[in-house]
Structures are given as structure tokens and as C-alpha cells.
């Protein structure tokens, strides 16, 4: 069937003017065959396996992007949660492993390597404990290593001992990188119900249900959705949903094509398509602006959650129709520092931390890239995490927390993280203490929804 002039024009417009891009191709690599009783031997095996598996990742992705004329912005690697490799290791070995990963990322020229991670939602193993101890140093001494911890699931409940520890870890990581505005915390996320095939950082890891090597693709196009909606200023909300759905469909189709092509050329299998509206600081590439286009004067006002729910659902529907292998976190990301509209919402006092928390009930991830005042206590951060975990646990969805306490900054100050990570206005935590609650520890039992067998 021959192509219509309009179709060609539409595709070119989406890519060149509306910032449609393949945000990331992420190669998931299992490292379970690298486990050795001797930690230095493990590190060597890990380095060798990553650099051989991903040797051609960057080159191939660049070549495919050029041929199809659609940019692939990031090339990344995710690995088996590192805590599984650390059973016999000490804290120093764990930090050394993180440095090995950093070196492997540099050698393969990928932007980030994710999976310095542990899954502790039900309990903590020896390897997990070592990883947690090493996290602050590992994140602050490396530049491309990302970490995540699963601290709760709907099936197991919330590991509150773990969450107490995570509050302290985030504080410590922020202090260790105080000179760079606590940048280490931007590479670390706490999850409830994490997705094992998520290609997006900082939460990417190669889950236990995955195969040896796999290629996952994350596509993003807030700009395309925004422009599509601008063409229908009078549409009712049913029609708005339809416009988003149709747009998401096209974006997903483009992503799967590119993903499969890259996977085929690398001789690996194609995993999933993650269709996420993930914003960037570029003009008109904002999720908040889509919500405002739907009809909110400023993101954060009454109606924000309804509009976000509509959008998130429409994205999923369009994506699910377009590809049978939609996975990851598909939906809408609402990171603050990476989204000009969100930043403006906070500056104009339309958007508060409480509203952001409420929005995470209907978005695809959670509290993301939020700068906190530097004197926030570890217990308050733990409390914030616990709230977010509870939302995910009860609603059977993924939620996450990626917050950055910035030393020496107070509510209202602006912090620059630079590059992809953007800038964020500092938000203040509630001044009242959560200390006693967090100190109790233990595990919040799994909710009734867990018993669905």
C-alpha cells in the first residue's frame, strides 16, 4: 500500500517539531553466572560479561536511529539486582562492584547502568544488607551507576525496618554529595511493586523472571500528545481521551519497530515496549502542560488528578492496542525537576507536595525528582516513603520515591542539577515528627488484596 502525503508529513512533524523520540534502549543482562565466592573475581566476571554483551549496543542504536530518522536519546544497561552478587562480600567489595559497573558503563559508552539494587520487601538477606550499607558511597563515588530498592509489594506488605534504613541512606548520600546538590540521590529510587522490565532509570534492573539478555525500549512523546490536543480545543473529555489514545498508538508503533530492529541486529530478543510520557526540560515536552491543555489553569489545581487519570489511562489503552508486549511502567511520569510545567506549578504555589502525593495514585510511578530542604530528618523522609509505599500497596500499582534533600537549601530555593536532571524548587516537609512511627520498625502486613488466589 502506498504512503499518503499526509502520513509522511505527520510522522516528520512528530519527530522534528514535537520531540517524538525513543527515549531509551536498555539492554538487560543477567549476571547470575558471575557469582563467585571471591568478590574480586566476581567483579572481573561482571565487567567481562557486561562489556561483551553490550559491546555494540551504542553503535547499533545510533545506526538504526540514523536510518529511520528518529532519535534514540539514551542507551542504557540494566543488570541483575547487585545484592544477589554480594552474599559473600563486604561493604568495601560492594563499593568496588559499583565502581566496576561504572567502568563497564564507560567502556560500553552507555549513559547509565541500573541495578545496584536490592529487593527487600519481605526481608533482608546478607547481600541486601551489604548493598544497603554500601549505597551512599557507591552512588556518590560513581557517575553512571543507578540504584533502587524494592521496599514493599501488595503481596508482602511494607518492610518498615528497611524504610527506616532508606531514610538514613538518602540523607547520607545527600551529605556525601553536598557540593553537587545531593546528586547521588537523583540516581536512587525506592519502589513498591517494582516492574522487572522497566527500561527507565533510576529504577531499571534485570529482574529474576527475565531471560539472559534482553532489549527493552522506552518511548516518550509528551510533545506529540500536547500538539495533538492543541488541534482540538473544543473537544469534550471523551474526545480528548480518544486523541491521546490515537497518538499513543502511533508512538508505540514507532517504538516497537525501532526496538525490534535494534534487538535483531544485536542478536538479542526484544523484551517490552515501555510507552511512558516522560517529560524533559525542552520547550513543550511537559506532562504538566498536557494537563493544562486539557483545561487546568495551572497544574496542581482542583481537577488535576482527574485530568491525570484520564491521560494515564488513555496512554495505556493506545499502547496496549499498538503492541502486545507493552510493559515496564507505561503511563505518565511526573518528575518535578524534569518538567517545566511542574516547576512552574510549584513556583506559582498551585502544586504542593500533598497534591503530588495524591497524583501518584493515578500516575504510573510516584514522587519523582523532588528536591527537599537539606535539614529534613531521616525519619521524615522515611515517613514520606512509607506513605508512598502504602499508596502502591493498597492500590496494587507501582509507586516510587526519588527525593533529593539538598544540603543548605530551604523551601522555595531553586536547585540546579544540570543536564537531563533539570532543576527543582525545594519543597519543605511537614515540620511535625514521624520519629516514633518509624522507630517502631517491623513489617506492615500485606493488605487483604494480597489474598487473591
Amino acid at each position, binding site marked *: 500500500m502506498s*504512503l499518503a502525503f499526509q*502520513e509522511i508529513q505527520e*510522522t516528520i512533524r512528530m519527530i522534528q517539531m514535537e520531540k517524538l523520540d525513543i527515549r531509551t534502549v536498555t539492554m538487560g543482562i543477567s549476571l547470575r553466572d558471575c557469582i563467585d565466592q571471591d568478590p574480586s573475581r566476581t567483579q572481573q566476571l561482571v565487567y567481562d560479561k557486561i562489556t561483551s554483551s553490550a559491546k555494540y549496543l551504542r553503535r547499533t542504536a545510533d545506526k538504526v536511529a540514523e*536510518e*529511520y530518522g528518529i532519535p534514540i536519546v539514551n542507551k542504557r544497561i540494566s543488570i541483575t539486582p547487585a545484592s544477589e552478587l554480594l552474599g559473600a562480600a563486604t561493604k568495601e567489595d560492594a563499593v568496588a562492584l559499583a565502581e566496576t559497573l561504572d567502568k563497564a558503563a564507560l567502556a560500553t559508552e552507555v549513559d547509565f547502568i541500573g541495578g545496584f539494587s536490592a529487593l527487600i520487601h519481605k526481608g533482608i538477606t546478607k547481600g541486601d544488607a551489604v548493598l544497603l550499607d554500601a549505597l551512599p558511597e557507591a552512588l556518590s563515588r560513581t557517575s553512571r551507576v543507578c540504584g533502587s530498592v524494592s521496599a514493599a509489594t501488595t503481596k508482602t506488605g511494607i518492610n518498615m525496618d528497611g524504610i527506616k534504613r532508606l531514610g538514613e541512606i538518602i540523607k547520607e548520600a545527600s551529605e556525601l554529595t553536598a557540593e553537587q546538590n545531593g546528586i547521588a540521590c537523583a540516581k536512587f529510587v525506592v519502589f513498591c511493586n517494582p516492574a522487572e522490565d522497566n527500561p527507565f532509570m533510576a529504577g531499571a534492573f534485570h529482574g529474576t523472571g527475565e531471560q539472559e539478555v534482553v532489549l527493552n525500549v522506552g518511548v516518550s512523546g509528551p510533545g506529540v500528545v500536547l500538539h495533538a490536543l492543541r488541534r482540538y480545543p473544543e473537544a469534550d473529555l471523551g474526545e480528548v481521551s480518544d486523541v491521546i489514545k490515537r497518538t499513543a498508538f*502511533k508512538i508505540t508503533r514507532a517504538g516497537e*519497530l525501532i526496538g525490534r530492529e535494534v534487538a535483531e541486529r544485536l542478536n538479542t530478543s526484544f523484551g517490552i515496549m515501555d510507552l511512558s510520557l516522560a517529560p524533559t526540560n525542552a520547550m513543550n515536552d511537559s506532562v504538566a502542560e498536557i494537563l493544562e491543555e486539557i483545561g487546568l489553569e495551572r497544574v496542581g489545581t482542583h481537577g488535576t488528578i482527574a485530568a491525570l487519570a484520564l491521560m494515564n489511562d488513555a496512554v495505556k489503552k493506545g499502547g496496549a492496542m499498538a503492541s502486545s508486549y507493552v510493559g515496564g511502567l507505561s503511563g505518565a511520569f511526573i518528575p518535578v525537576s524534569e518538567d517545566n510545567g511542574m516547576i512552574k506549578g510549584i513556583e506559582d504555589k498551585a502544586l504542593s507536595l500533598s497534591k503530588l502525593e495524591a497524583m501518584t495514585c493515578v500516575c504510573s510511578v510516584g514522587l519523582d525528582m523532588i528536591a527537599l530542604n537539606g535539614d529534613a530528618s531521616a525519619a521524615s523522609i522515611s515517613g514520606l516513603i512509607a506513605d508512598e509505599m502504602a499508596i502502591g500497596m493498597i492500590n496494587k500499582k507501582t509507586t516510587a520515591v526519588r527525593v533529593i534533600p539538598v544540603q543548605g537549601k530551604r523551601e522555595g530555593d531553586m536547585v540546579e542539577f544540570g543536564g537531563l536532571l533539570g532543576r527543582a524548587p525545594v519543597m519543605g516537609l511537614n515540620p511535625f515528627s514521624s520519629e516514633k512511627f518509624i522507630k517502631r520498625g517491623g513489617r506492615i502486613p500485606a493488605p487483604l488484596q494480597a489474598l487473591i488466589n
Partner: protein
Amino acid sequence: MSHKRAVVSVVGKDQVGIIAKVTTVLAENDVNILDISQTILQDFFTMMMLVEINKPDDLENLAEELNKVSSTMKLKIDMQREELFQSMHRI
């Protein structure tokens, strides 16, 4: 590369010789034009071509020569594999 069809799009200010220059580069690189459509959209010359590439391994050279035309005539010239358009718009 198994498929060899691509879409070449040219957008820019209308002037004498756009089609001549672009098609010359294509002909010199053994690229066959299967379909061509051209119009003026909002004062901009807009041309789309569906082409068949006979030497798919030598795409760099072709892209480089198109770039030269693109910069001397102040045009935006893109070449993209056809499957992208097919998969986005057709079920």
C-alpha cells in the same frame, strides 16, 4: 539491510533547481525514485519521495551528499526508512 525503500523529504524556501539538485544526487548514488509529490505549503517548498536504494551499504555517502545540497540551498532534507511510516499509520 533487507528492505531498501526509504522516504526522502525536502522542505525549505522555494527556489530554482531544488528538484534538479536533489534528484541528481539520488541518480548518482543509484537510487531509483518510485513516487514523488511536491507542493507549496505555507510558502514552503515541500517534496516527498519514495525511493528504492540499490546500494544500501553505502548510505553514508548518500547522506553526506544530500547534506551538501541541504546546506548550500538552505533546505531541510531527511531520509528515513519506509517501514517507520508504514508501522505508525497502518495496522
